[in-house]
């Protein structure tokens, strides 16, 4: 039997690692990876809360939220990577600091 707070701690740790990466990574693909890590941390939390607090009542909100996060993660990866590729094509860089112009 695993206590609920173990899951919360794990998720907090993953979230903080992801946050660190999202802020400091130079490579924009790396930033995207970090954001995906943060989304995963959120998912762990949601499913843990579902299992411990909502499942006894048959409440499905957490599960639907997890599905939404999956979809958002997929959409974000698709569009984000497409933007990175497009930016790379026009400016030959994927370093986020160098993408400082709004022109395409």
């Amino acid at each position, binding site marked *: 039997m695993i206590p609920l707070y173990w899951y919360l701690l794990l998720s907090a740790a993953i979230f903080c690692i992801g946050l660190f990466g999202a802020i400091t990574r130079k490579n924009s693909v790396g930033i995207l990876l970090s954001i995906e890590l943060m989304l995963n941390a959120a998912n762990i939390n949601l499913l843990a809360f579902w299992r*411990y607090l909502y499942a006894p009542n048959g409440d499905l909100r957490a599960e639907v939220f997890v599905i939404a996060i999956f979809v958002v993660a997929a959409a974000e990866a698709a569009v984000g990577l497409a933007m990175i590729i497009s930016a790379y094509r026009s400016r030959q860089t994927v370093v986020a600091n160098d993408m400082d112009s709004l022109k395409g």
Partner: protein
Amino acid sequence: MTGIQILFIVNALVIIFSAVMTVTARHMIHAALWFVLALLGVAVVYAMLEAGFFAVVQVLIYVGAIAILIIFAVMLTRRALEDQEKPFNRASLVTLLIVGIVFVGLILSIRFWPLLQSTTVPLSPDQLTVGTLGLALTDPQQFALPFEVTSILLLAAMIGAIYIAHERKEKGK
């Protein structure tokens, strides 16, 4: 300490280690591979939470699709990998501090939460399959709208991403 607790701790350590490697790896492909390992660990966590559907979907969507897409993108942008340089920008130390504060804050905020002591009850067989989820997703009283909205979101994402990434032929002429 029961077997499942040991399993959880080992798995958590694997996840955290691979998450750290994802964030710090110099080579983007290595970062992506460590990311895959972290995702597999998260899928194991889902399985421990008896959310079997989500565990499988995690492997299917993240490992099978998102990770592969990321690796494709890394290959496409590989000339700018900057293997030699530092992978972090100059704010890394400050960020480390901020993230540490956030982590401590998160722990403190959940520390005295009353619901923390809740325990699990065995799930009904209906909850183990996704049948109830499917019913709820099509019930207009419940989640029919989110269900359709997700598909529109994905459609929009696909159209947008194709529009951005697709090389227009006539441009070259």
